[in-house]
């Protein structure tokens, strides 16, 4: 049973464009939502994260939008660059639960064309 659903599976964007990746979750106990970036042969690296009491968080070219009522959140990458080409994972965790492990989506492979 997949608790975090991520789409699309792959995404091709032109340099300078906006990349948008969406995630939906089921467990209302989740209270921390990070995004990870993973390059081939490397481990995931924390990119940006949000808590459900905030509807939007921006760090540089990366923005998370969060819709608590819809149980959805998304990552926007503005002015996408070829160096952003990687696989992106959304995740969720129950911060207040006894088991604080990350639940990951299946990932989105982003290719930014020059």
């Amino acid at each position: 049973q997949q608790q975090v659903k991520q789409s699309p599976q792959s995404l091709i964007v032109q340099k300078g464009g906006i990349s948008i990746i969406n995630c939906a979750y089921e467990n209302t106990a989740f209270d921390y939502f990070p995004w990870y970036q993973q390059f081939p042969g490397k481990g995931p690296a924390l990119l940006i994260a949000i808590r459900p009491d905030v509807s939007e968080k921006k760090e540089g070219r990366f923005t998370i939008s969060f819709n608590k009522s819809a149980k959805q959140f998304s990552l926007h990458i503005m002015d996408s660059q070829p160096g952003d080409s990687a696989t992106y994972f959304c995740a969720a965790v129950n911060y207040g639960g006894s088991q604080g492990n990350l639940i990951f989506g299946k990932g989105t492979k982003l290719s930014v064309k020059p």
Partner: protein
Amino acid sequence: DAGVTQSPTHLIKTRGQHVTLRCSPISGHKSVSWYQQVLGQGPQFIFQYYEKEERGRGNFPDRFSARQFPNYSSELNVNALLLGDSALYLCASSPRQPNTEAFFGQGTRLTVV
């Protein structure tokens, strides 16, 4: 400033064998978690340790076991390897539990033949 280090980086084992993977967390981090990442999928939680005690276990068979040492480093052991155990095994460390602000190592690529 060392990040999470895992060893070995690559490993090839035969079905039925046993494997031990090692992880050293970021200095000062007391929580270590293990994840399995099959090609094309997101990481799946295997174990979490905090202050040398198991704090969580994912949906993996008893062939998988782990432990955390007094210096907070950790080992993941897998017995009776199956072809399906081939994956990237990731270790993540956090300063505290739960596993927010998790920092991942580069992983150990295990191939079972």
